[in-house]
């Protein structure tokens, strides 16, 4: 049997089976989904380097499912993260209700993501894209009571994106008579400039929603926060990457990157790319600001995620060899570290029942493994050497500088620095500081949850030392995408300015880190009561006696500083827009008045109207 | 003892005979109407007519006629014919009267409702009387309650029941009594 359809069958089958057997036995349903994922992942692994493809016709449309280096790269992200989160879920979801439903949606999501990366035509791409949307929607609304608004927002934004994409791909079909990527990449350059721009914009909207690019990100913080922790890891780690994958397709496979040759370029970057780069940079910056002021651990990570995706977009939009490498590298990297951070926060939630930073503290002794994971995670996010994050960020700065986009580089760097503020906060407020009494009995999570986190954590370490293997895979993908493979020796990291040994860097940083760590521990060991007249609260006059904590109002001055960016919440704008629009629909009350005679009058008017325009109907 | 039985049987037979006569009378009337409707004497029409008349007589014969075959006695037929002439004459008079009133510019009328007693007992007789009155000079039967007719009279000359009887219904009542009672 063909491998690709077989993998899809396994995944969908696992979903259905998990749902069906889920009625009887917990281990069975979790087992079915884990086994299904591993089996599928194993088969997928075997596809590396092959060009397996499967074609058929549906409703007269040509459909092709195939594997190539690019899709393999993203497939790896999907399966790696999916298997780990599934294992994590095995323990995490125990005792929760509707696990059958959870397993079902999880497997469907994975299957659809896999479907997306193997699609060789726009039709099946869209088909799987939509499945992904609804299945992940089911996950977002898993926690019934709070989730509805967030879920709806997620779904509507996704629909807007999907329909923009649909319009684009239908226009493509109208032009070319085919949905095949190959046909499109051959035909793109034949489109008029206006059409190219339109298609570009529509596709970007479609992908940017999933990639949570500002201003289309508004669904993400709530959706990430509200969905079950293991799934959030998959959500942020893999699902949002589908948007990135789409952008990669758009730029390099469909040929939108070629737009560069025909329109204005700014410093060697095509205008659309340039604009997109700015979107990416602003996303990175604003999301970071937003993250800083969050009190909910998952929300914080969610904004962080948005920021990171901004970096990736920034890399892609440059369309340069180094930029793409940076983007792809950071995509993989982000999947790993954001996956582990979300799992870790999930683990904490699993034990403490809260995600509020202000309520936690001092868990380092109770949950040392989790602490370790988070620690490695934030180092990676911050892009500090020696862990994998360093390579990614470094590549991005380099790519920007290479294009002489200094200002963008400054913005990106600024965002990266600011990121440290929230990252510091997450480790400090959860694991350090004073531990509330009620968490004294908290235990470390079971091994089934510990293992996936640790595997990911070790992966960041490994990549920090040996990024070459990954970069090699990326280069293969780049060849497929028609981009010159990135010559590692051209990076500042590895080039003539002097080879920086990642191992050396690692050692230096480890020492520095521990010093900082000890300093923090000794200086801010205890929190203290703040009296009403105490001025040692960063200039704030407390409204009441409070337990001062770094989690609380620590960044208040900062928050005030950036408030100009934060005040006008995009999601509020959308909400009021939607409300006003919906309110506008009330004009229909004047149509459906409930008066039968009015309806009859409409009929008469319609008839009169038709009589009037009858000459146009001939 | 046996006398009572015989009486009883006689009564039953009489009753049955009376009922039967009503059915047969109805059948005949219905059949005649059928022939009138079809205005045809073809066998198939007659057969179908007989069937229809039979069915209708079976279901409605009893209520259709009170008198049964006795309605067909020679005497009654003679009176009917005589009555018809009287009636037609009265009706023509009535119409001349109406014409006069309608056409005269002043419309010499003085209407009111008066009471007219009647000695007729059977409903069908009352109907015949009422209709006759309605169709003749300036009178219209508004209602019949027991043995009194209430007549809208276009030009009231008297309200005394005895006199109204003489003026309005006496002519018809004697014929109708003969025909229907």
């Amino acid at each position: 049997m063909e491998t690709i359809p077989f993998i899809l069958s396994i995944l969908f089958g696992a979903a259905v089976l998990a749902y069906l057997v889920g009625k009887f036995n917990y281990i069975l349903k979790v087992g079915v989904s884990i086994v299904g994922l591993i089996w599928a992942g194993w088969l997928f692994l075997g596809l590396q380097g092959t060009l397996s493809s499967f074609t058929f016709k549906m409703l007269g449309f040509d459909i092709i499912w195939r594997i190539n280096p690019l899709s393999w790269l993203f497939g790896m992200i999907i399966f790696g993260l999916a298997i780990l989160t599934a294992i994590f879920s095995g323990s995490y979801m125990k005792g929760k209700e509707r696990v059958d439903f959870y397993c079902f949606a999880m497997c469907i999501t994975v299957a659809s993501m896999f479907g997306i990366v193997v699609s060789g035509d726009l039709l099946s791409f869209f088909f799987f894209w939509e499945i992904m949307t609804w299945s992940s929607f089911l996950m977002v609304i898993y926690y019934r009571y709070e989730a509805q608004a967030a879920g709806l927002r997620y779904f509507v934004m996704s629909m807007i994106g999907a329909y923009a994409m649909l319009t684009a791909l239908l226009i493509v079909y109208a032009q070319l008579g085919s949905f095949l990527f190959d046909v499109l990449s051959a035909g793109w350059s034949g489109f008029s400039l206006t059409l190219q721009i339109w298609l570009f914009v529509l596709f970007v909207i479609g992908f940017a929603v999933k990639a949570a690019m500002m201003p289309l990100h508004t669904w993400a913080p709530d959706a990430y926060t509200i969905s079950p922790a293991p799934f959030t890891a998959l959500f942020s780690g893999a699902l949002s990457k589908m948007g990135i994958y789409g952008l990669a397709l758009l730029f390099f496979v469909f040929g939108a990157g070629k737009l560069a040759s025909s329109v204005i370029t700014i410093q060697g970057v095509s205008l659309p790319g340039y604009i997109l780069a700015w979107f990416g940079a602003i996303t990175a910056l604003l999301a970071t600001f937003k993250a800083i002021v969050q009190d909910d651990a998952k929300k914080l990570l969610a904004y962080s995620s948005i920021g990171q995706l901004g970096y990736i977009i920034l890399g892609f939009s440059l369309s340069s060899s180094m930029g793409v490498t940076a983007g792809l590298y950071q995509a993989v990297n982000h999947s790993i570290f954001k996956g582990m951070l979300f799992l870790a926060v999930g683990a904490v939630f699993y034990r403490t029942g809260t995600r509020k930073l202000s309520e936690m503290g001092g868990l380092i002794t109770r949950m040392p493994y989790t602490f370790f994971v988070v620690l490695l995670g934030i180092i990676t996010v911050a892009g500090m050497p020696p862990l994998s994050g360093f390579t990614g960020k470094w590549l991005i700065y380099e790519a920007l500088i290479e294009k002489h986009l200094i200002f963008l580089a400054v913005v990106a760097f600024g965002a990266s620095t600011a990121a440290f503020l929230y990252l510091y906060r997450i480790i400090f407020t959860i694991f350090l500081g004073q531990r509330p009494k009620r968490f004294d009995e908290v235990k470390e999570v079971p091994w089934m949850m510990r293992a996936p986190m640790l595997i990911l954590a070790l992966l960041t370490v490994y990549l920090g030392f040996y990024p070459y293997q990954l970069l090699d895979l990326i280069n293969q993908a780049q060849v497929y995408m028609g981009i010159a493979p990135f010559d590692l020796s051209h990076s500042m990291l590895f080039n003539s300015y002097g080879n920086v040994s990642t191992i050396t860097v690692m050692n230096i940083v480890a020492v520095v880190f521990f010093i900082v760590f000890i300093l923090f521990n000794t200086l801010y060991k205890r929190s203290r009561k703040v009296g009403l007249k105490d001025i040692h609260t960063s200039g704030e006059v407390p409204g009441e006696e409070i337990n001062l904590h770094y989690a609380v109002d620590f960044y208040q001055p900062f928050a005030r500083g950036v408030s100009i960016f934060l005040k006008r919440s995009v999601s509020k704008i959308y909400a009021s827009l939607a409300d006003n629009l919906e309110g506008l629909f009330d004009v229909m009350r004047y149509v459906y008045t409930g008066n039968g005679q009015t309806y009859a009058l409409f009929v008469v008017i319609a008839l009169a109207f038709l009589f009037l325009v009858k000459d146009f109907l001939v | 003892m046996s006398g009572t039985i015989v009486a009883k049987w006689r009564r039953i037979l009489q009753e049955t005979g009376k009922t039967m006569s009503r059915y047969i009378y109805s059948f005949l009337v219905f059949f005649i109407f059928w022939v009138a409707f079809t205005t045809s004497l073809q066998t198939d029409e007659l057969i179908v007519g007989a069937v229809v008349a039979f069915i209708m007589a079976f279901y409605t014969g009893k209520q259709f006629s009170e008198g049964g075959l006795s309605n067909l006695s020679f005497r009654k037929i003679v009176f009917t014919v005589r009555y018809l002439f009287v009636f037609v004459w009265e009706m023509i008079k009535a119409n001349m009267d109406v014409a006069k009133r309608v056409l005269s510019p002043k419309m010499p009328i003085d209407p009111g409702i008066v009471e007219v007693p009647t000695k007729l007992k059977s409903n069908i007789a009352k109907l015949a009387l009422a209709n006759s009155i309605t169709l003749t000079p300036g009178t219209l039967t508004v209602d019949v309650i027991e043995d009194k007719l209430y007549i809208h009279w276009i030009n009231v000359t008297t309200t005394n029941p005895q006199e109204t009887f003489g003026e309005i219904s006496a002519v018809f009542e004697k014929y109708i009594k003969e025909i229907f009672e």
Partner: protein
Amino acid sequence: MIYYVAAISLILIGIYAVLVKKNMIKIVLGLTLIDSGVNILLVSLGYVKDKTAPIFSNPTLTAGDMVDPVPQALVLTAIVIGVAVTALALSIVIRIYDHHKTLNINKIRELKW
């Protein structure tokens, strides 16, 4: 010609009643007026000058003497349908009256948009 005018006028008057009258019975009557108008129109479309009813009731009649029988057949059907609809309309009105105790259609608009 006059039949066309009459029939269309009937239809329009009926529709006018349906659109404007407040009493539901009158609205139903409006519907029957419309029906009559349509039926008259149908029959007049079948009419042929100086021709007679399409029944071979005596042997002197030939096909050439008769008007088109089809519209009459159609009208027969249309009438029956009209009766059926009217009957049903009246029973619905009775039901409405039971609930609302009024025949004023303006007072019967619980179901808004």
